[in-house]
């Protein structure tokens, strides 16, 4: 397809809440196969930017183009389903009363069934589709190292394990692009390694592109090629990860200049 075009292109996105300009005229792009980082101090508008790009909130102005298609104003579920662009949430969220396998099957369903009506089916076709999803889910569960706890309700697992479930869920539909909102927040270092490994595996083997919001600079420098810095709703600077952390302006922004 349009291999020369960026996978995701966001142009001049702005969003205000009342008098507060949360995001002000930000343009970014993500190339195919890339892991990009989005950093900035607290309150710099990163999450709002995510929400506006993924359809959870409606941008005031700006266009979001995914794979050559204008998806501005699409709902969250449509962007996920039709655009195969998925996102995670800052707070760890899983379907708490369901086990890991069910969590993952749900994540895959809407990409396997062609319509809502089809999901009400109980026939052979429907069963074989679900069986396929289960197989894939088991693979991913193994990969994420959750095999031993796969029958426990997700709500009973640790924060890190739930993060892994959430992450594995997003890999179910063979996504093109995943937007991660602080994947490392509040989890212990052991699991951080595992999450990093999983991201890299997904990127290399499954060809998934990433945009990652992260405060852990070590993680950012180790996985991201390119980094965009937001400050007070505007794009401050953009460049290669190693250059960015040396940048004077970025340091000032983080140190509360």
């Amino acid at each position, binding site marked *: 397809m349009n291999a020369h075009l960026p996978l995701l292109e966001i142009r001049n996105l702005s969003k205000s809440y009342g008098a507060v300009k949360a995001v002000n005229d930000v343009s970014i792009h993500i190339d195919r196969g890339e892991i990009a980082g989005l950093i900035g101090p607290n309150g710099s508008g990163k999450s709002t930017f995510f929400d506006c790009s993924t359809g959870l909130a409606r941008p005031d102005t700006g266009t979001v183009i995914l794979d050559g298609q204008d998806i501005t104003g699409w709902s969250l579920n449509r962007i996920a389903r039709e655009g195969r662009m998925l996102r995670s*949430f800052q707070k760890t969220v*899983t379907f708490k009363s369901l086990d890991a396998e069910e969590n993952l099957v749900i*994540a895959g369903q809407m990409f396997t069934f062609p319509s809502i009506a089809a999901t009400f089916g109980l026939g052979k076709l429907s069963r074989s589709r679900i069986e396929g999803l289960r197989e894939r889910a088991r693979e991913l569960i193994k990969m994420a190292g959750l095999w031993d706890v796969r029958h426990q309700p997700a709500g009973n697992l640790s924060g890190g394990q739930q993060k892994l479930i959430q992450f594995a869920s997003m890999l179910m539909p063979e996504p093109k692009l995943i937007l991660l909102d602080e994947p490392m927040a509040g989890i212990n270092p052991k699991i951080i390694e595992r999450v990093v490994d999983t991201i890299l595996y997904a990127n290399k083997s499954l060809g998934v592109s990433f945009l990652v919001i992260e405060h852990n600079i070590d993680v950012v420098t180790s996985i991201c090629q390119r980094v965009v810095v937001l400050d007070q709703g505007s794009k401050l600077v953009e460049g290669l990860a190693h250059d960015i952390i040396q940048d004077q302006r970025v340091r000032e922004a983080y140190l509360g200049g």
Partner: protein
Amino acid sequence: MSLTETVPQARRRDLRIPLAVVLIVVALGAPYMGSRYVTHSLIIALIFMLPAHGLNLLVGYTGLLSLAQAAFFGIGAYTAGLLAVTYGTPFYVNLIAAALVSGAAALPLGIPALRLRSTSFVMCTLGFVIIGQAIAKNWVSVTRGDMGLSSIPKPYFELGPLSFTVSGTTNFYYLALAVGVLATLAVWAIVRSPAGRNMVAIRENETLAESLGVPTWHYKLIVFMISAMFAGVGGCLYAHYLTVVSPLTFQMYYSTTMLIIVLGGGAGMISGTVFGSLLFVGLTEALRVAPEVRMIAYGACLLVLVFWFKQGFAPLINRFWNAIGGVK
């Protein structure tokens, strides 16, 4: 249970199959085992089980607390009653019409209501019942206002040259039982389908479900309509059984009754709703031994339910079922 887990040490005898047989025999033979009063009580339980099944899909599976069920129950009752009285249509026509009209009515009501959150949604659905009653009272040319519909004919079937009328309590019981079993199977099918899984996902975390591509709004609307259809079917049986439909059919009391059945039985469990409807009717009828304090005792039972049986009776049924199956 996975095969890798250890086999339970002392497997007791599995009594589940004998019990299931007993239950089926009791269900089929009930009219010949007790008085007509018992049969009547079972019919009432079956009639209320239908809207409760619908409500269970909403409350138990999708996580939407609705009090609108009585409104759709009333719409179904009026649809069936009017058809039977005016055109003398066969029962299955009334039944399908009641389901369709109730389901169709749920569409324009659900679209605005489902945009609301929690308490506002509950109040909005309660409003449907109140407004439904006002319409039934004032749209005299159609509903005959406060006079209501009475002498609704007994249900009759017309299959080719064959036609027969369901008369008498016993026969009506079998009709209600057949409808009830079909409805229960329908709920089972919905719940077991991939859509059922999506409904649970919406209950657990709507935003997460949305982010995984589930069109939550469409699902909620569809489930709202399906639940209204179940209520409509219940309304149809109600109209034929009681032979009277009046604006009183639209009342909060029925909505709360259905909610009590679902929550008392155990939300999110089909067996819970079936059991809940029996429990509810059994309880209210049992309390008739003391008419003066009946509703006081009933209120106290609700408090017991809320504080001691938070999950309803379904977990107990499950334990019992597993226990007699020898599974620890």
